[in-house]
């Protein structure tokens, strides 16, 4: 399993309390940083640690912070939208150790001199929203949050923003619109780090990203880098494993752990199941056949295979699962959730979905295959990363499982139906 950084002292049935967290060094990083080190120092440490964003895109956190604009107030938005299908790591993280999350947020806020944080959370995580709200009060009581934190001149407060549920709200610029009470469409026209929330410098980070910060500060960037097993990787990663495995769940393992080791950690394939394919990082990544089971789960190694680490949410499919049907299910989701702002996503995804539906129902035609390919490729010219994400499983299907598509066409029905 390797060293536990984020899920340290994980309890099976309850979150760690403030005391428990402090017993294992919790908030020490904060006390050592606030008023003692400059925000710039913190940014440099995080940059040196090689910490990359855990929200899907893998952008280096320290680098993003270095772009922070001059204006004030500045905002930090810990992104806990987590609507990527298959992903539940942020929920587990918050539930295991809310104070680690809070300390990460406060330290990061210090690093970018943010005055206010907006904890953006999806509605199905209402219980977790309440948990964070409660613990936030505890942290405030303890002087870790609010005016003049730990007696310094650094003030920062955090509020919980409840979303009302839409996948696109996880996209950073759409999220900022959502908080401002506007329609949550993405916006590429503004630089968030200069003119984000309410026109002020804003940083959006995934909560897992932020939760890495206390340990980096406490144990140093080199230690953090050393946690990873991949060449240029850094840190540990929360992998949530679901599907046809024996022990679905969220596991913290070194960045770059090969897929099959993570599968083993999750208890291996369920009885009677053989590995047919897996999605390595949520619904917006591409299906991979078993020949990739040695792949190191990290940004770069997966990129080399033409895929993405995404959120590290591994979904495991077995020999009895129809991948055309699975892709259709994903496209149902993406079609329904598309924000509707741009044409390829709004109109192209329903077209792709329709072709998949016809294939699955045995009405498929040979010419669908090149159409699917072309359209899936064109999704990469959509406005935001939603449509490319939606196209990824389709491309994986076409690339690795074209034979299964053809079976649907030639048999004029789904080969898995009635089996």
């Amino acid at each position, binding site marked *: 399993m390797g060293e536990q950084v984020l899920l340290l002292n994980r309890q099976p049935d309850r979150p760690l309390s403030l005391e428990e967290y402090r017993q294992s060094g919790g908030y020490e990083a904060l006390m050592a940083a606030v008023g003692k080190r400059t925000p710039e120092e913190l940014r440099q440490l995080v940059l040196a640690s090689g910490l990359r964003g855990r929200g899907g895109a893998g952008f280096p956190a320290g680098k993003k912070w270095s772009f922070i604009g001059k204006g004030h107030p500045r905002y930090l938005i810990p992104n806990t939208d987590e609507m990527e299908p298959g992903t539940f790591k942020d929920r587990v993280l918050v539930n295991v150790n809310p104070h680690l999350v809070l300390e990460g947020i406060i330290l990061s806020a210090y690093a970018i001199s943010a005055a206010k944080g907006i904890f953006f959370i999806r509605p199905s995580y209402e219980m977790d929203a309440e948990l964070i709200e409660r613990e936030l009060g505890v942290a405030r009581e303890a002087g870790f949050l609010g005016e003049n934190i730990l007696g310094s001149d650094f003030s920062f407060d955090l509020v919980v923003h409840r979303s009302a549920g839409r996948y696109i709200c996880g996209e950073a610029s759409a999220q900022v619109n959502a908080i401002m009470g506007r*329609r949550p469409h993405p916006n590429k*026209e503004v630089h968030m780090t200069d003119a984000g929330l309410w026109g002020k410098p804003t940083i959006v980070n995934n909560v897992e990203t932020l939760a890495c910060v206390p340990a980096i500060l406490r144990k140093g960037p080199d230690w953090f880098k050393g946690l990873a097993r991949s060449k240029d990787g850094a840190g540990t990663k929360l992998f949530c494993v679901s599907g046809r495995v024996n022990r679905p769940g969220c596991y913290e393992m070194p960045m770059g752990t090969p897929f099959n080791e993570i599968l083993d950690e999750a208890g291996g394939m369920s009885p009677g199941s053989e590995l047919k394919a897996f999605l390595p990082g949520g619904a917006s990544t591409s299906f991979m056949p078993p020949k990739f089971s040695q792949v190191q789960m990290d940004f770069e190694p997966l990129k080399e295979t033409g895929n993405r680490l995404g959120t590290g949410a591994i979904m495991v499919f077995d020999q009895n699962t129809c991948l055309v049907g699975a892709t259709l299910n994903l496209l149902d989701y993406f079609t329904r959730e598309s924000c*509707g702002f741009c044409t390829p996503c709004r109109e192209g995804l329903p077209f792709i979905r*329709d072709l998949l539906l016809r294939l699955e129902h045995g009405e498929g035609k040979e010419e669908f295959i090149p159409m699917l390919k072309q359209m899936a490729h064109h999704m990469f010219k959509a406005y935001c990363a939603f449509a490319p994400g939606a196209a990824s499983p389709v491309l994986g299907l076409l690339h690795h499982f074209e034979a299964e598509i053809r079976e649907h066409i030639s048999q004029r029905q789904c080969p898995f139906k009635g089996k």
Partner: protein
Amino acid sequence: MPTLRIDQREISVPQGTKVIEAAEKLGIMIPRFCYHPALGSLGACRMCAVKFMEGPVKGVEMSCMVEAADGMVVSTTDPEAMEFRRYVIEWLMLNHPHDCPICDAGGQCLLQDETVSGGHGLRRYQGLKRTFEDQYLGEFVQHEMNRCIHCWRCRRFYQEFAGYFDYGAMQIGNRMYFGRFAPGPLESPFAGNIIDLCPTGVLTDKPSRYKGRRWDLQRGPSLCLHCSLGCNLVGSARYREMIRVEARFHGAVNGYFICDRGRYGFAYANHPDRPRQARVGEEAAPLDQALKTAAQRLGQIRERYGPGAVAAWGSTRSSLETLGMLQWLCQDQGWRGPQFFPQASLARRVKAAVARLDTGMAVSLRDLENADFIVVAGADPVQEAPMLALALRQAARRGATVAVIDPRPVFLPLEYEHLPVSPGDIDLCLNLLSQAARSEEAATGKLEPDAARFYGLLTSTNLEDPLLQERLLALGRKLQDCLRPVIVCNTDMVRETTPARAADQARLLQADKGQAGLFYLLPGPNAYGAALLAGREEVDLLAAMEQGGVKALVVVENDPLGSCPDQERLLRALDNLELLVGLDYLPSATAARSQIFLPTTTVFEKEFSHFINQEGRLQQAVPLHQGGTPIIQVGQGSHPPRTFLDAIPGGEPRPGAGILADLAAALSGEPAPPTAGDLWDYLSGEHEGFSQLASLTASALGEGVHLLPAEAQEPAWSPEPGEKPPEPPAGQLELLLVDQTFGTEELGSYAAPLQKVEEEPHLLLHTDLAADLGLAPGEQVALLLPGGEVTVRLQTAQNMAPGVAIMPRHRRLHWQKTGDGPVWLPPENIKKLSEPL
């Protein structure tokens, strides 16, 4: 200036230009839906994809989202980009109904054009089409939501550009719906622009629905006559009926847009009662014959009483040709006049304003959008000149501060500060603002002696309301840091001193900051021209008529019975006449009363005409058709008509200028009246303001020219800026006659579509005052005016000056009982008639 190559051709463009715009400069129209020059880039439709072959950006990207940069090599015809664009079209057509045959956008549809040009012909999508229910959006805009391609233009215009929030985007994904919360009329007076913007047939022009295809229409560049801004239009006529008006781009005036008054006001030209036949007494007569009779009778009166017994009364809605010819006629015949304004006091205000404008001072609507501080003094833009409000909004969006000093409960679709003071306090407010905007040293030290002296003369009594005073001073302090201030001032309801005072303050700002602008609103589309022609001397025809010196009156495209605030007096004066000759295209009360009537054409018919807008810009309107009674009216629905004639039914009207020229010829024959070409020579001799006219070529006239002088006619500071205009007698209210967006403007009030949307006539009082008088909003009240009683419904408002009563010059309200000049009203003259409805 980045230089790039697009389709093998090189072009340099200003920094910040998007590639789609750079291509347009080369004449390459990259397909697009969401991009619009006025709204800017959005990046939503993905139609404008091109391939970047070399340079800082590589691969297929949206040309509306990428700024032109040095070294870029762009291909708009690259196969990869073309294939992507073909897919975009295919996607957009998935749900688009193939109802082009019955769609009013057919033939005028960007989606149609780009579907054809993109080569999308075969439908491959086999799924069901998404369908929506349409909404009723009012009398102007027809909704057909199934046709929507979600380009966002309507919402971006409606909310971001125009600042109204009752129309927008609901739902998500491909269920997204553009409409209102509930069916109902669109609240924005700029709503009609979404018809022009919609790239397909979702939003179409309701009044002209099913009346013709674009290629069936007689189209041409025209002008809006519904206020003094002079917005540019494209007019469309068919079967002798004016059926539609769209906005025409003009960079300095209206940009891409017009207001709904301008869009739907044209229907006066089709008014079923429009007098299209000449008349002598009660009898219809051929135009030539009626004209001869008129000449004969006018000649007789002149012989009997002398030339001064004939007078001419024109208006500010006539073309410059007609105004000029009337002027010439009066000079030639020695008649009195012409008078162009309904009241002498209004003429003075307008002349004062026009005399202050010069090239250094006047700003266009477009300039106004770049101002950083705008004082609106005595104007209510949305009601009086709606497009001004849209320009103010653009300024505000760029960060300008907008302050409105006006007694009315002014509403603007933007963030602004309103100081509700009575008209008598506007001058003082401007003084105070000036003083707060400048520190003592700066005031005296930096200014040239004349300006400093003027500054020294400014009075600074405090406003009665300390809160207002404080807000004003705070605004003044804000003005200190502004670099491009503009003063906007109307000439309608303000004191006679105010237009000049606005100019003085603008000059003071200019002296201080090196840059400042002045923007007036004038009463009517040719008020500027009329003011120049009217010259310096005062004409008061009403007085002359009352005294009996005038025996014949020639009224040209003017309806004194509708516009003169003292009708009792006017009627008495008219009774003194022996002859009333009327020329017009409106079925007005004055036209009906004329003993001899000669029908004239509208701006849309037969001949070119010119108008000068409020900033001195001469613009041309091209005739769209020959005119005549619309076939729909002649045939009463059946077509073709069953009787065949060799003349156009109802085709008799002629341009006013031509009729006047013939009248002149018939009166004397000597000297010959100027022909169309000579008229410009004549005018240029008439007034320095017209001096450019003589040398203008036909093409310059077509494009429009700024006639402003380099130095204003009235370049001196007005004396005694401290002088306080008349105050109302204690305890009395000042009655203000005002304009409304719909329902008061003369031409528009004859337009059926506008009549459907006009606000109700009402009397507006401050909420507290109404309560003191025991009156409640909604009640019918009797208003005792100098000329008699008017019954009107009461409205109240909190954000208006306390000492005034406001009444629109509504076509359904007999406001012409108020009399000339400021009207003071004892509150007891407002009496309750009934409980609120």
